């Protein structure tokens, strides 16, 4: 199975701090073999399906081959062994920032929907006109939202603040939860699906 791994700079696991063997001279990296049962989280090698990617953003994205028994977790897959095939070159700091900015725009639109539903149409129009994270942050700061939309609007501002700090994974999280605030669990799932689709298209996965 082909899957993906987000790693810290230098090919280091964000939780295990394991330095993964990197591909060299066009050949895959060495197999990394887990110490036990792939169905058990602690004893398996972890990786992402495309749909899992928005939860795990890190510095580097690698395509990986999984071997042996592969089991599915909530937002990841676990395998008995894995090796890195290639780095996904399209994922870098600039791409992460574009993704973060796109998530802010989504959070902004969800918040504007909440304003529409609260009959605050003028505020919704003004918020939708905020074209950049900086403008979203400023518009939210200047907006006194009616109570039913207050939290969603505030969350859009938070997404903008975190995106401006380069925290793409947090901007994505906030956008998903802004959607949940407006449209419930289905909204959250749809937002995460949108984020995965964005990454799939942008990175040609």
């Amino acid at each position, binding site marked *: 199975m082909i899957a993906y791994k987000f790693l810290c700079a230098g090919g280091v696991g*964000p*939780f295990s701090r394991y330095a993964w063997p990197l591909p060299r001279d066009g050949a895959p990296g060495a197999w990394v073999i887990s110490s036990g049962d792939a169905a058990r*989280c602690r004893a398996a090698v972890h990786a992402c399906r495309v749909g899992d990617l928005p*939860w*795990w953003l890190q510095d580097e994205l690698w395509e990986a081959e999984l071997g042996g028994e592969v089991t599915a977790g909530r*937002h990841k897959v676990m395998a008995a062994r894995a090796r890195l095939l290639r780095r996904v070159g399209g994922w870098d700091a600039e791409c992460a920032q574009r993704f973060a900015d796109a998530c802010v725009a989504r959070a902004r639109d969800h918040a504007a929907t909440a304003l529409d539903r609260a009959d605050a149409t003028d505020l919704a129009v003004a918020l939708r006109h905020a074209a950049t994270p900086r403008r979203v942050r400023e518009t939210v700061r200047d907006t006194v939202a009616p109570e039913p939309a207050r939290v969603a609007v505030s969350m859009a501002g938070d997404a903008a603040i975190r995106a401006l700090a380069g925290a793409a994974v947090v901007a994505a999280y906030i956008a998903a939860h802004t959607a949940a605030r407006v449209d419930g669990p289905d909204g959250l799932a749809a937002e995460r699906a949108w984020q995965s689709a964005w990454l799939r298209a942008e990175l040609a996965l």
Partner: protein
Amino acid sequence: MSVDEVVCREFAELATEYLDGAMPDETLELVEEHLAMCDWCRDYLGQIETSARVVADAPQTAPPAPALEALVGAFRAHTTEDGPP
């Protein structure tokens, strides 16, 4: 713990269990999802790791006898007056 995710307050209670590797897999996945996006909790975890390492590396010396006696005496006086702390 929340059904769908771990929040910072919950992570603070789970951090030691996480470092000890004593966490059920389902909880572990939720905790690592949270750590992937929460730099505050990553910093907190790092502080706990550092503290544990420093304590583990510290020389195992007993306090001087007078200091130990004074501490035990103060503890006994406190528990006698106010009940167990």
